[in-house]
């Protein structure tokens, strides 16, 4: 069932991708991005060991051909398979152009937290830390607030951070932020969103740099 907020965010993220880029999509909203690349030729990499991931029709699903979210995927022409050490060599080695990731929190220095919640039984990190170290550009796609209405764009992450590296861009259903020169810049309001809404729902300070 398509969630219109998630689809909106994914569609906006897809606009950031450029012809020929190699993209790694995280679990959740990022996975939806591939639907919106249209006729741009980009290449999707998945950390379990494949380059050339495509969407797949249900009748063609193969249980042994999956992405990092363990969802069945398709195999584009010119795709290739490799082991997990080689796959993370590509990630850490700087060979992935863009990683699009979900987060639990992101702070004013664009550090993200997306792998652990203190006191909860979440014992998993997966490839998130590697992608943050290695991808040339990291885009965060997230709802602006959590279910209880609190801003996910916070002064400081209260959950454990995923990396020292700041992400490059944050896309929510309300706005687009870029992290430049040590500051979060609000560069875009999503269609129909007023500045006050963004201000009200964003805990971290940001600079207004609307284009």
């Amino acid at each position: 069932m398509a969630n219109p907020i998630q689809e909106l965010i994914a569609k906006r993220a897809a606009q950031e991708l450029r012809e020929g880029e190699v993209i790694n999509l995280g679990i959740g909203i990022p996975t939806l991005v591939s639907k919106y690349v249209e006729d741009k030729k980009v290449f999707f990499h998945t950390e379990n060991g494949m380059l050339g991931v495509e969407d797949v029709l249900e009748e063609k699903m193969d249980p042994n051909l999956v992405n990092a979210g363990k969802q069945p995927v398709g195999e584009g022409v010119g795709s290739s398979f490799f082991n997990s050490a080689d796959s993370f060599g590509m990630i850490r080695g700087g060979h992935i152009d863009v990683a699009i990731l979900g987060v639990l929190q992101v702070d004013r220095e664009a550090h993200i937290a997306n792998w652990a919640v203190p006191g909860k039984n979440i014992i998993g990190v997966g490839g998130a830390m590697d992608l943050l170290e290695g991808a040339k550009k990291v885009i965060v796609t997230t709802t602006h607030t959590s279910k209880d209405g609190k801003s996910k764009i916070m002064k400081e992450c209260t959950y454990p951070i995923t990396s020292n590296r700041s992400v490059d861009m944050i896309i929510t259903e309300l706005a687009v932020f870029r992290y430049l020169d040590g500051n979060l810049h609000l560069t875009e309001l999503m269609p129909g969103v007023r500045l006050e809404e963004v201000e009200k729902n964003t805990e971290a300070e940001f600079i207004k740099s609307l284009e």
Partner: protein
Amino acid sequence: MMTTMEIFKTEKEALATVQSNQTIMVGGFGLVGAPLTLIDALVELNVKDLTIISNNLGEQGKGLGKLLLQKKVKKAIGSYFTSNRDVGEAYQRGELEIELMPQGTLAESIRAGGAGIGGYYTKTSVGTDLAKGKEIKVIDGEEYVFEKALKADVAIIRAHKADTLGNLIYYKTARNFNPIMATAAQYVVAEVDEIVEVGQLKSDEIVTPHLFVDGVIVAKKVLTKEGVVDNG
């Protein structure tokens, strides 16, 4: 490996040398590319206090998840246990030790173990809770964290085809951790869809050369769209 590769008829024979307190690498990403027949055989063995190196501990009640429910796992080394909630519960009850590693670090440490590398430096996890207590080294002005190689007594892996020498090829994303685990254990058994004559696998397409493989067995449990089913 031993000098002669064995083609096993039963999974019990294939795992005859497994003992309590050993470290066992298990291939797969969730159930994809996991050696489901050999995992079931492991569950049946009268052993305990195993250390399991695997990306996940299967799913709830499936794959390695069964081994956990039998309380045969002392320690799990992997990157993502969230998908099996039994893991978190066993951990909270103090019945299970966990060593959580970034997925790339897990893969690299296994590769290092197989390639005679004692340890290495990665930027992954620097500045995070997972680097706490670990050595940091500055190389060319950037911080890296030291990670040690991982090795095992036994590796059970999943491949697509083996030839009678033990050369292996893999199927699509069922490759994942299997080829690197094949290099990093004293004793390596591969579960395969098919065993073919030597010469049937092309020399340029072999992913795991036979020198890594001690035994092969044809899979009796396979992953299908309908879940795990008996093979033939």
